């Protein structure tokens, strides 16, 4: 059954306040770190834990922090990416609402580790209630001497601010987020230079997802070995999975990495809705290739098993679709999403996402031409890895996997 190990506040969903967090041992990791550890030791613990970025890319967090310049005259910034928007993903929303102090403690530990004195929490513009919860927690923390100058009387100066987005999926891409935070359109930047070297206001900047930062207090508190043992050798720790679609009990579940998908589906989520059969599994958010029921049967929820199955763990957004869905309809729905959310900066993505959607519209309307499926796959070839950011490639995931695994459904529409 569902258990919450690293994120206990998601169990009760009622203990977002400071008193409850302190009762449950909150801010102990911060106290321990400030009393006994050097910043480099905190960073080393996170690196040793094997924690990987939980926003979707899965990049090792400790290594990312290690890209900061060793010496710099400029301020170092920490930015929390709370621009949750990958279709199927809603775990960060729960962390913001129910575990804001755990996020704050994680950001304080991270600021201590990387030498940052200012952190921004970039929250998607629609999350008004979530932002209010974080702001309440920030006020509580300030009032308790946990934020601001000389935190806990131990000489650490950090302030954190909420910054609201305004509706743009692309701002979840970290360099687009930086542009947005600077007050510009959210266009991704060319890399290198990476944000760790040239980031916010041209200064060294670390950008981490909400869940990544919220995992830091349990890692520092219990140690890297404890955390590693929760998962597999190559995918250490736990991860939050957002389960949506045709299951009896959708929701956010904390899963030990390496757990079989069917266990999550049957034991935590109560199985398929109405006892119908699984048809399509999208295991890591709309950007990752979809799996058939047969493929899903052998999938384990970790980075390696997803790769072996030709897909990705992504943000842990598990979209479960039953036999009532039409795969071309699913692919069209997602093609609309990417066409709408392409920032328009790179021609292959701007044009490619538009044409993929347009062609799928005509196929679904029964006006498809015999070459349309190959044309769609051809467009994918011209979009993937020819753009500044990963949105274009992400847009090809559902199209390529949908057509290759369920081609007969598309053929039936084209030849109807």
């Amino acid at each position: 059954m569902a258990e919450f190990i690293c994120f206990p506040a998601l169990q009760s969903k009622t203990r977002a306040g400071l008193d409850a967090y302190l009762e449950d041992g909150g801010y102990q990791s911060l106290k321990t770190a400030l009393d006994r550890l050097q910043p480099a030791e905190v960073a080393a613990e996170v690196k040793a834990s094997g924690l990987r970025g939980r926003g979707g890319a899965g990049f090792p967090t400790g290594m990312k922090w290690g890209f900061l310049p060793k010496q710099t005259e400029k301020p170092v910034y920490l930015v929390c990416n709370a621009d949750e928007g990958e279709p199927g993903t809603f775990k960060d929303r729960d962390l913001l609402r129910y575990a804001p102090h755990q996020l704050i403690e994680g950001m304080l530990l991270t600021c201590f580790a990387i030498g940052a004195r200012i952190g921004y929490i970039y929250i998607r513009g629609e999350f008004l209630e979530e932002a209010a919860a974080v702001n309440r927690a920030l006020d509580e923390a300030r009032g308790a001497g946990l934020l601001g100058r000389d935190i806990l009387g131990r000489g650490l100066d950090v302030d954190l601010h909420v910054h609201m987005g305004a509706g743009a999926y692309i701002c979840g891409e970290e360099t687009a987020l930086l542009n947005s935070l600077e007050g510009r359109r959210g266009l991704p930047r060319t890399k290198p230079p990476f944000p760790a070297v040239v980031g916010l206001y041209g200064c060294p900047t670390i950008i981490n997802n909400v869940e990544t930062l919220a995992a830091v207090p349990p890692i520092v508190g219990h140690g890297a070995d404890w955390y590693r043992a929760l998962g597999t050798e190559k995918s250490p720790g736990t991860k939050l999975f957002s389960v949506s679609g045709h299951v009896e009990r959708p929701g956010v579940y904390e899963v030990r990495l390496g757990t079989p998908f069917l266990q999550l589906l049957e034991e935590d989520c109560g199985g398929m809705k109405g006892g119908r059969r699984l048809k399509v599994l999208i295991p890591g958010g709309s950007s990752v290739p979809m799996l058939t029921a047969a493929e899903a049967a052998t999938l384990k929820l970790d980075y390696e098993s997803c790769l072996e199955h030709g897909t990705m763990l992504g943000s842990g957004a598990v979209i479960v679709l039953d036999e009532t869905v039409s795969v071309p309809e699913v692919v069209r729905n997602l093609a609309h999403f990417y066409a709408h959310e392409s920032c328009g900066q790179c021609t292959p993505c701007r044009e490619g996402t538009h044409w993929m959607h347009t062609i799928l519209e005509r196929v679904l309307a029964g006006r498809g031409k015999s070459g349309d499926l190959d044309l769609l796959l051809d467009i994918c070839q011209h979009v993937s890895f020819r753009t500044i950011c990963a949105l274009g490639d992400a847009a090809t995931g559902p199209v390529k996997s949908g057509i290759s695994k369920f081609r007969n459904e598309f053929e039936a529409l084209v030849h109807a």
Partner: protein
Amino acid sequence: MAFTFTTEERQEIERILARYPEPMSATIPLLHLAQGRLGWVSPEVVDEVARVLELPRIHVADVVSFYTMFQRKPVGRHRISVCRTLSCHVLGGHEILEYLRTRLQLGEARSGTDPRGLFTLEEVECLAACGTGPVLLINGVYHEGLTVPGLKLLLDKLEGLDAPLIAPGSGGTDAAPGGPANG
């Protein structure tokens, strides 16, 4: 119509500016502030934000055009934003949209404002509440796990249709027509 920030808003702007080393970072927060009062971002709002932040007007106009939450036309009294993305869609989101289009008499249009100017419907992409779909926002407030009958009740309430008939001279009613949805 001219738009200027009020004295209270100017104080809020000072608090916003204090968070950032560069005033340009306040562009989106100030646009939210203005839209929060006016309901949309008029050309005069763009003028005022540019003036207050000492930025070129085109910079502010450019930002407004990029982000979907900024309305560039006046909207009805209640703004309804319905998620159209996959998880909501397969859980009945398209039925919610069809119901709204019919109720608002939008004809062939996918989005827009009803003839009385009461409701503005827009389709939006994933609202990150996929586990409780279908999801929509009414005036920025999340409503989750919606059904068509549930939505009908909600809109009836907003229209004041569920309010008891009031005898002339008997005073008001608690069911204020056009009041905010459950906050």
